[in-house]
């Protein structure tokens, strides 16, 4: 299953928002997270989002991460040792 984060907005700031989105994702078979259309996110949101999503996937690709967000996503994943769980794919 693919999750398109921009379904929920273009920017994401808080842990509470991450918890709200995670509660709406009803799948334990997530294989792809599409960040197209996501223009900004805070480290707190990303940490909570990926930290929570790990319960619902064993491995997923991160696609369409804009170049501004990419270093932040990498840092958050590295901090939680989640680089192998969420694999950042280069743009096509």
């Amino acid at each position: 299953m693919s999750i398109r984060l921009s379904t929920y907005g273009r920017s994401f700031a808080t842990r509470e928002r991450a918890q709200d989105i995670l509660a709406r994702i009803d799948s334990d078979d997530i294989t792809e997270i599409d960040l197209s259309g996501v223009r900004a996110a805070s480290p707190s949101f990303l940490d909570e989002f990926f930290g929570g999503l790990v319960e619902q996937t064993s491995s997923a690709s991160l696609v369409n991460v804009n170049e501004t967000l990419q270093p932040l996503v990498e840092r958050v994943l590295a901090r939680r040792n989640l680089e192998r769980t969420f694999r950042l794919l280069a743009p096509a």
Partner: protein
Amino acid sequence: MTKRRWNLRDMPGPPGSVVTFDLTSWERPTATTIIGIVCAVARFAHAGHTLRIVWPRSNYALRLLSTVELVEALETFASVRGSRAEGRVQRHHPIIPVTNIKAARDVDELGANVEEEFTASGRFAANLLGDVYICMTEAANNVVQHSRSPVGGFAMAQGRYFKAFGELRPYIEIAVGDPGVGIAESLGIASDREAIAEAMKEGVSSTATANRGLGLYVIEAAAKNGLHRFVALHSGEGHVIRGSSVEATDREVGCTSGGTWLTVLLPY
């Protein structure tokens, strides 16, 4: 000559006493100054003081305060007779007006407004959005999670010219502050200076939850992610400046804040 020291931490007398904020000398108030005063006014109003505000004489200052909607912000918690002046302010671009932050939904809305302003205005380079967004929302997150302020905190952002590093440049100036307990009390550290230094380290948080303590660390990283950027963090009697082109400083300043104020300057 003794340098005057402002103390915005201690209550200025018993509830009901009159507190006067004399802004007559304001000419080009910075975002930090504006946020600092709003925090103090909110805190004293909440504590039951009667407030009197003497507005700036400078028409430039009045127009600037109008564009950042200072009076509207003050009116949410006090009856204010404001002095408004219409007209544009040269070399000044409001990004986010003075905004009260009390809960997570306010932080989400603040972030959405930052993103929308960057998208709509086209005035600022797209690659600045990420750092501006991080600095504003993480600082605002800290207000909600740690300040214990009954009135919350306040945030604003504007584009203006500053003379820094020997040159007049356009900067995005971000200021987020709260009249809360301050970092030292939040972390349980006696010294304001030591508390600030500790708070800027990765993983340091007053919450016991794992994987916290990212906010100030990432804000400092953003402040070092380009030339002529810096972040200043002021809490109680502690004041720290960090940035890509400055040597980290920790110094005494002429003001004891009642709470915590953060400023970030990013050239654009």
